[in-house]
Every structure is written in C-alpha cells, then in structure tokens.
C-alpha cells in the first residue's frame, strides 16, 4: 500500500546540510503494523513527517526518492492533492497531545471540523459521527464531553481525542509518532490497547514510531531499526528481537534495563554518544561505538543487504562472523560479571 524507495531528506541548518534521512526504503501492507525504532536524532520522526511532507520546507528538502501511496508518488503531488490524502487516506498522531489541539475551540467543534473537511455531510450528521468517534476511542460521556475545551482533558484523554481526529477520514494508514512517550505507563497501556482495537475494527495499517523497544515488541509485526538517518536492520519483529544480526540492535537490546531481568544486574552499556549528523563518521556510522568494529568498518559504509527472507542488515560482518564475535563478547561479559 505504501512503498518508500530510497528516500533522502536533507535539512539545511546553520551548521551545514544534515542528511536526516539517508536512502531509506520500506513497504507497508494494508492492515499491518510497522514499527520504526531509533534514538533521538536517528531520523525516525523526520522520516514520518516526510511521508506526508509535514517538515517545514525550507529548510527541509527531498532531493531523491519516491513515496508511493497506492501507486501515486506523494513527493510529486501538489499541496492541494496532498491535503486530500492527509487525514483522508493517511492520519497522523503526534507525541505531544498538549500542543496538538487548539486550546480556544471546543473539542467537539474541532472534531466536527475535521470530519467536514474530509466528508461531505450535514453538520448534524457530522456531530453524530463525532460522538461516535469519541465513543470509539473510549471517551466516557462522549455527548457531554463534546462541549469541553482541551484543557478539561487529561493527557491520555487528549491523545484519545487526537486519535479520533486522525480517524475522522477513515484513513487506511495511521502514522503514530511516539504517541505514548508523553504519557504515564498505565495510560500508555490504555492507548496501545486502543490502537490495537482500532486496527482490528477498521483494518488500518499503522506506522508506529518509538524509542521504546518494549512498545515496538508489543505492537509491531515488522520493524525498522534506524541509526543516524539510515535503516540498519529491518525484518519481522521476531527477526529483530530473537535473530538480531546487526551490532547496533544487539547492543541496544542488551543495554536495556529490563523488568524481566535479574535485579541489580549490571547493565552492559553502549560506549560513546550518538553521532553528529552534520559530520558523520567515515565508513559505517556506528563503528565508533561498535564492539564488533574492525579496520574495514572505518572505510566501508555498509549497505542494507538481505540476509534471509525479509530480514535485511547493514553490516559488513557475515552471519558466521557476527555469531562468533557475539559468542565471544557474551562469554567475556559473563566472566566480567563473575
């Protein structure tokens, strides 16, 4: 349904041109959930905004690539055509539920407005539909809450309203950019449940962007791991979590404090800091922090290559080399702990 091919997004900053998204390709099929995971600065949000071209332009440019949505290239469409697709075909949910609603209008009015921009119907019908949507996203007393202002709603409730607005046009694809990061865990659990329920009910495809590997593992079927603007590993959720083949993903999974881990166990950290995107390191972007790095990694910038059916990895190590080195590092850690 959605196919992104070799997308590049550049941002012109005062310090130079930043390759925020650097040659990214992936597909999303109807009804599935794609998780995009990465740290801040990995380009995951810029990527999400690129799909609907919500990055301010300038300073953002799209010099290369295609974004095919049901066959048409979104990068070639006029602003008017894009506006039709936004909301109608593709809905978006953002991280910050506080600032994404207009504080001076009633929630109901904003929702009705959203419905009327996408569908031709009478105001009365739109209102009925709005109440239905609010019920759908689990807001109690939907009728009376239509007349409330955003500040009457808690963070979790606002996120529900935003989901309702995103659903107003019956979109086929929902892009959720860190939808639960600003929320407490118990509320996060509610919102994730809600998103799953909506997917089951309407068959909406979801692109879920998060820095939280837990959220991704709970929600996604396919996963992209991003590091400094590139996809470094891509595959099914089981590929990524159980058959990890890229040093970054492996190190990241290992460094997580885990609820199912042993109490007081020492964490195995990734050394160093995420790279500066204005002047990325030579060779592989991850090599300065990579425990597997060899001389060759300084020179060769690995491309994302298929390793197994549907499992792609950007690393010069072969599967055997990676497994052997992993074995060695893991046993070294065990000794270190003892």
């Amino acid at each position, binding site marked *: 349904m959605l196919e992104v091919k070799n997308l590049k997004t550049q941002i012109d900053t005062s310090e130079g041109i930043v390759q925020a998204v650097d040659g990214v390709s992936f597909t999303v099929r109807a009804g599935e959930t794609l998780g995009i995971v990465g*740290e801040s600065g990995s380009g995951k949000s810029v990527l999400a905004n690129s799909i609907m071209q919500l990055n301010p332009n300038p300073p953002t440019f799209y010099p290369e690539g295609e974004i095919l949505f049901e066959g048409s290239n979104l990068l070639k469409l006029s602003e008017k055509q894009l506006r039709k697709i936004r909301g109608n075909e593709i809905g978006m949910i953002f991280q910050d539920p506080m600032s994404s609603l207009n504080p001076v209008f009633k929630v109901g009015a904003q929702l009705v407005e959203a419905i009327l921009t996408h569908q031709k119907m009478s105001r009365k019908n739109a209102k009925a539909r709005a109440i239905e949507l609010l019920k759908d996203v689990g807001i109690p007393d939907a009728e009376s809450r239509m007349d409330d202002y955003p500040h009457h709603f808690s963070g979790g409730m606002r996120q529900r309203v935003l989901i309702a607005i995103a659903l107003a046009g019956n979109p086929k694809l929902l892009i959720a950019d860190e939808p639960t990061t600003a929320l407490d*865990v118990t509320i996060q*659990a509610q919102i994730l449940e809600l998103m799953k329920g909506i997917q089951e009910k309407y068959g909406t495809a979801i692109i879920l962007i998060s820095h939280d590997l837990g959220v991704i593992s*709970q929600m996604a079927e396919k996963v992209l791991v991003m590091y400094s603007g590139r996809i470094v590993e891509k595959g099914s959720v089981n590929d990524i979590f159980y058959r990890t083949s890229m040093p970054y993903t492996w190190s990241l999974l290992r460094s997580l404090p885990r609820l199912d881990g042993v*109490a007081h*166990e020492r964490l195995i*950290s990734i050394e160093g800091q*995420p790279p500066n995107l204005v002047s990325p390191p030579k060779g592989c972007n991850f090599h300065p922090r990579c425990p597997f790095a060899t001389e060759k990694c300084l020179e060769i910038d690995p491309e994302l290559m298929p390793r197994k059916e549907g499992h792609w990895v950007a690393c010069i190590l072969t599967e055997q080399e990676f497994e052997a080195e992993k074995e060695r590092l893991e046993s070294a850690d065990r000794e270190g702990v003892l």
Partner: protein
Amino acid sequence: MSEALLEIRDLHMHFPIKGGVFQKTKKHVKAVNGVDLSVNKGETLGIVGESGCGKSTLARTIVGLQKPTSGDILFEGKSILHYSHKEMHQLRRNIQMVYQDPYTSLNPRMKAGDIIGAPLKAYRMTNDLERRVKELMDLVGLKADDYHKLPHQFSGGQRQRIGIARAIALNPKLLILDEPVSALDVSVQAQVINLLEDLQKELNLTYVFIAHDLSVIKHIADKVGVMYLGKVMEISDSESFYNDASHPYTNALLSAIPLPDPEKEKMRKRIVLSGELPSPANPPTGCVFHTRCPFAQENCKTNTPLLEAKDGNDGHLVSCFYPINTEKKQLILE
C-alpha cells in the same frame, strides 16, 4: 549497618490553590499526603509513581527547597525541619540532588568546570579547586579538556555526568536522584545507571532514586516504594517487591510496562487500569486508589487502609485491604 540515614515521618506537603477576587485559599493540592519512609546508609531506595503522584515534591522537600506542611524529616537521627539558616547550609553539603533534565539543570553561561566547582566555592573549599574539579570530572567519565566547554557543547549523557559531578563535589552522604535517566537516549541510559552504581560503591553513597520506570529501578534499588496521589501504596525490599507485589496498583504498573520480547508480550495478560488519575486537590475518600482499582469493594470507598506489614514480613508494607496474593495473581493472569 541498618542504621537509618534518612527518615521521613508522616510528611504532608499541601499547596494552597488561591482563587476569587481576594485571592483566598480555596483548596489545597495535597501533593504529599502522609508519607513514611526510611533509607539506610549505603542503600538505594527507589520511589516509583506516575506524574502527579508527588514523588518530585517529596524530593524537593527532602533537600529543603520547601518547608513541609507537617510531619518530620530526620537526617542521621536529627530533625532537620527546625534547623537555622546556618545549620541548613551545613546540612546541604550532605544532601545533594541530581535533576532529570540535563538541559535545564546546568547554567548555559557557565563552563563545565565552573559548574562543578561552584558548590566547592560556596563552601570555601577553594584549595586546589581546579585539581579537585578535574578529579571529579575523571570520576564521572569526563575528559580534562572538557573543563572549559559550555553546556551546549555536550550531549545529553555528558551533561548528566556534569550534573552528577556537581552533586558529589561536596562528598555528600545522601543523593536524591530525580529521574536522572528518563530524559536520556536508550543507549546512554545504561552508561549513566552503571556510573551511578560505581559511584555508590566507591563513595559509599546513599541514594533516593525517583523514577517512573520500574525496570530502571529494578537494576539499581535495594528497596522500592510506590506512590499514588501523595501516599505510599507499597514499599518493600526489591526482591520481595518484584516477586511478590501485592498492591493492585503495583501490579497494574508492573503489567503495563511493555517488555522488549515479542513472544512474552503475546502471552502476557495485563491489568489495564480504567480511568484517569483523580485530581490531587480532590482525592477520593477512603483508599485513594479505589476509583481505578479493579478489585475495589464497598469498604474501600469509606475506610482508608494503613501501610502495614504483609503476612508479618516487616520488610514488605502494603496499604490495601485486599492485597493480591499468589493464588489471586494466578487467577487474574490466567
């Protein structure tokens, strides 16, 4: 060994809400509403809770940024609430704080070295100041040539290291850590947690570690307390806490955290709490959690449970009339 360094007794911190033409006090936000805690020397107490549970207010009250409404705080057995200005100044050397946001907790116009050296200057420990600062920088894993850099030249993780160096500069006994890793990138969190553990061993520090993330707490705390609406719901040594959590709220929190393990995630049953956090200005009567508790009974609406030892285990206190035992847990999760 088990000597309490910090003891908090029935602490209340209420903030007035003013309103109307004459700015009369209408109501009070009961941010901290009767908290009892104690932390032993060399121990780490983790305090967990969602936003609005009062954990940050508790931290600010311990370091003396606010005077509590009532209750008592004892440091090394002495009540600190009636300390004079001078005594308070001396006490501050022993209780230091690390903040959540590495971007707003450092003065943007001061060099890293000056930031770390500022507490030393405040206590006139200026002999060999630069050497001492460089020693501290080394201790937290900063390079000596970072001395003259400004905060914006550092990454988030490095800034947090500066904040930690500042906090340990005076050789404090107690460190209050207010969400020290929650603003950091996942790949940097582990570095900072490990650093904190190393420092604790090396400098014999006692930590109060405030977080919203139970998995981070699991790696660092010896004792864990859960707060909800200004009250402690459950407090226990870490092992008993994670293996045998009894309060419905604790169980809901634990089950809400997604695991980075897709197969386990599919198998897992959750206790998804309904509803939202009530306003701390208007807490529910009886047990404050009853409005969202899946196991609440009539009794819970009117009577307030006390924080009591669970099954005679003094190390595990629960504030609930109907704590979840192992069999009940089986029933819920099956």
